[in-house]
């Protein structure tokens, strides 16, 4: 749930989602769910000439499983907080994993 919570803090920010089929979509992050499906508004496609089908699309829902990268605005990320959260999350998952 670490990255789900993380992406929720980024709602409203402009991000670029790079898909595994090399399509790059930039837009305002509207929502994210537990599968890291992503919804973007006011989208712009980076390589527009390669994807004529995206010309008439204004907002989109991207299935989490097809995402390769999400490029994030550096100012919106608190790296110290993120590292702490990651340490805590892994500690938690290993101890609960052993108990199970």
């Amino acid at each position, binding site marked *: 749930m670490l990255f789900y919570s993380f992406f929720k803090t980024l709602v409203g920010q402009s991000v670029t989602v790079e898909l595994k089929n090399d399509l790059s979509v930039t837009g305002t992050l509207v929502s994210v769910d537990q599968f890291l499906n992503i919804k973007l508004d006011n989208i712009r496609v980076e390589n527009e000439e390669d994807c004529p089908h995206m010309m008439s699309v204004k907002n989109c829902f991207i299935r989490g*499983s097809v995402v390769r990268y999400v490029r994030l605005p550096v100012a919106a990320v608190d790296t110290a907080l993120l590292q702490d959260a990651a340490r805590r999350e892994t500690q938690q998952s*290993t101890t609960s994993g052993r108990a199970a």
Partner: protein
Amino acid sequence: MADTLTATPAPAVPVPSTSVQEPLDLVRLSLDENIYVKLRGDRELRGKLHAFDQHLNMVLGDVEENVTTVELNAESQEEVVRTTTRKIDMLFVRGDGVILVSPPARAV
């Protein structure tokens, strides 16, 4: 006697955070360090690890991405191997594309 056959029980006290008990501990120890990540699709990343989870989803900072491509010269039918590099300030990487993670190189 039976004791010797059973697996070592989980320690009652939490394991020190510097020990490597399972593969992902190695990644945990690389937090805030520069790591190398090899990905599917002939891609390689170098950057500072800020976060990861059990799927190896990651957030990296100051990333340099290398993509290796092969281009065919139409006339000579010769293949040219090319590496394209780009810089990304802050990047979320989805874990399903990760092939391997390598911790920072130690000073030799």
